[in-house]
């Protein structure tokens, strides 16, 4: 039993820390620290900085232009990036579609699309959920009907994050109504410039714009854009949803947020009564302990993956723990900020203590909803453990 990182890992951590200190534009770090998002130009710029270091596709194998790091190094990288408030790389490109292409796509698809993800040509978005298919993803009704060398796609996708920046979308589409709902789903790559596609913004509860609806009306997609086999898309979709295990616990982001919370608490708690301060401190201590426990829970899963083990219900557990701990941190930051959290931060006019605390808190309610809601994760755990 050895819970420490190897000297080699520690060297690597120092290397990453040094790189990000010297190369992350402070403006980007500020935006991230305040709970905001980079715009397209800014994120592509950050991508380019990482690309020059060879770390953009950091979770990919070497043969595809990645780093070949194992789960532990990947974890260290994530943690250091979060620690420095570095923007996350576009997950749809690097963590979602790419692994699916590598495992199930054709050589041609890999050769064509993977380099375009790295060089900034393609910005992918996701076409999974539909208005009638949320937790019940297998009930999607967007159809793709074969017509010669093309599919004709009709239907509607929703919750498409950052679709406004994207030129490409990967979609789950229904290619058959035979058998179980899962059986007739295919995984299709669609150019958003194709006629018949309309993207409409969805304004979120916090007033922000990061998600979209996408409408498909007789959209003609080359059959060569099918990933893997027709009607096998459900397998690929599930693979995608569980692939990113090292990130699912959000350990790095939560550690960073905890630091921020404790700094805010040290500053704001001076005016509190001893008992109010104790109650708040107890909640902070609780979440700090939960996070330290989860850090190790996460490392145990990583070590098992690195050792060739296959995580089962663990990835669902990490999703639940990770989202709940992060949400508790957001909730505590909002509380510590107190009355000032009510003010919207709008540039110069913001009160001195204002943060985006309320907005971030509400925005991050999504953490327990998306990527398979926490209820779905509990269903998965129950099924795996109880065998029912």
């Amino acid at each position, binding site marked *: 039993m050895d819970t420490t990182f190897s000297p080699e890992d520690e060297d690597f951590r120092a290397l990453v820390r040094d790189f990000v200190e010297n190369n992350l534009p402070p403006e980007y770090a500020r935006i991230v620290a305040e709970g905001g998002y980079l715009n397209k130009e800014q994120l592509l710029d950050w991508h380019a900085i990482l690309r020059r270091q060879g770390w953009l596709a950091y979770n990919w194998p070497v043969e595809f232009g990645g780093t070949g790091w194992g789960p532990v190094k990947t974890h260290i990288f994530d943690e250091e990036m979060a620690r420095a408030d570095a923007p996350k790389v576009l997950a749809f490109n690097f963590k979602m579609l790419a692994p699916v292409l590598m495992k199930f796509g054709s050589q041609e698809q890999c050769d064509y699309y993977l380099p375009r993800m790295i060089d900034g040509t393609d910005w992918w978005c996701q076409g999974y959920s539909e208005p009638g298919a949320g937790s019940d993803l297998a009930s999607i009704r967007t159809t793709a009907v074969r017509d010669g060398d093309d599919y004709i796609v009709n239907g509607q996708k929703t919750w498409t994050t950052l679709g406004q920046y994207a030129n490409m979308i990967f979609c789950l589409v229904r290619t058959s109504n035979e058998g179980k709902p899962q059986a007739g789903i295919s995984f299709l790559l669609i150019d958003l410039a194709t006629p018949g596609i309309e993207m409409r913004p969805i304004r*979120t*509860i916090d007033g922000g714009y990061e998600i979209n609806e996408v409408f498909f009306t007789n959209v003609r997609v080359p059959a060569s854009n099918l990933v893997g086999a027709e009607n096998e898309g459900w397998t690929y979709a599930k693979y995608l949803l569980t692939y990113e295990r090292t990130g699912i616990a959000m350990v790095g982001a939560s550690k960073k947020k905890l630091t921020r919370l404790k700094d805010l608490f040290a500053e704001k708690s001076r005016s509190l*009564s001893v008992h109010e301060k104790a109650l708040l401190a107890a909640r902070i201590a609780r979440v700090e302990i939960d996070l330290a426990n989860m850090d190790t829970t996460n490392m145990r899963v990583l070590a098992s993956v690195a050792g060739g083990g296959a995580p089962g219900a663990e990835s669902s557990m990490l999703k639940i723990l990770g989202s709940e701990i992060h949400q508790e941190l957001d909730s505590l930051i909002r509380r510590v900020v107190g009355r000032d959290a*009510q003010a*919207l931060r709008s540039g110069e*006019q913001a009160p001195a203590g204002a943060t985006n605390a*309320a907005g971030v808190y509400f925005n991050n309610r999504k953490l327990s909803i998306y990527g398979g809601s926490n209820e779905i994760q509990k269903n998965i755990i129950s099924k795996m453990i109880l065998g029912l």
Partner: protein
Amino acid sequence: MDFTHTEERQMVVDTLARYIQNEYNLSDRNDAAASPQGFSDVHWNNLAELGMFGVFFTEEQGGFGGSAFDVAAVFQELGRGLVVEPLLDCVLRSGHVLAAAGDFERLAKVITGASRYVVAQAHTTGDRVTAKQSEAGWILNGTAPMVKFAAGADTIVLSAQSGADAAQASFFLIDPTANGVAITHHDTFDGGSASDIHFADLAISSDALLGSAHHADTIVRTAENWACLAICAEALGIMEAIKETTLDYLRTRTQFGTVIGRFQALQHRMAQVLLEIEQARSAVINAAAAVNKSETDCDKALSAAKYSIGRIGTLVAEEAIQLHGGIGMTWEYEMGHFAKRLVMIDHEMGNADHHLARYMQFDLV
């Protein structure tokens, strides 16, 4: 023992409910809530005309109500409709400050809706306004931060430190457009506005003093109790609205071939939400019943209520969003706006931790 409203009170509530139902549209509400003033003059005037402002005051004070259950019932209904009009800030609180100071002339104008006053308490917070006596009156300096709905007020009712220490504070009536007053307005997350009000050597005459000097604490106490009761009742109304929307959603949203209300895990969580809301309702009743009791009983019941509302409100908001899934996080869907206000209520007048700590101090620690 009788938990029903009087006929008169029920009529007021019904009138208000009808007005909200027929005239108060959430999309327009959101536009008004995001405007610089933070609410709509049209609705304000309509509510005044419906006589809603007089409900908060006794006949002696120039109103036709004034019982705690009057206040609670009206604010519960305002909560149900997510009404952003500042009845709490510009009528109930400032009206009771005027009443406590014995200024019934100004109070009468509040009740008719002719005048809008907001109370800015700047003698107890970290930021502080000081009032120095001068020959002609007083000189004011400092900042009153985050005064809600100051943007819509004709007059600021400011409490400032007027003596040697914070315990010596007085109320002053201030024209927000006067030289020496600078106002920074903020939009707020739950709609409405809040302002930082800066005073730089503002000279005011002696007759700007409201009530007698150095008695701000006494003057404001009753008003703050009314305001605390009112915001708890508002929260209860919001919870009821969220409950109904969420139950509707559970009954109609279909996933996995059935309405999601058939999933037992969701049922049990909703059952918990329902019984907690009943507890919140009881907390508001307890607070209303205690407003006229001894200072300790009143403070305990108000802290118990504000704590309960804070804890349960957060639970209700979070569970409602989670049970809705993505749709609950969109601007277009009404429920989310209720959830935002409900959570933000815990950021006003002391949050759940604050009130639990205050409650503990009565006889536990």
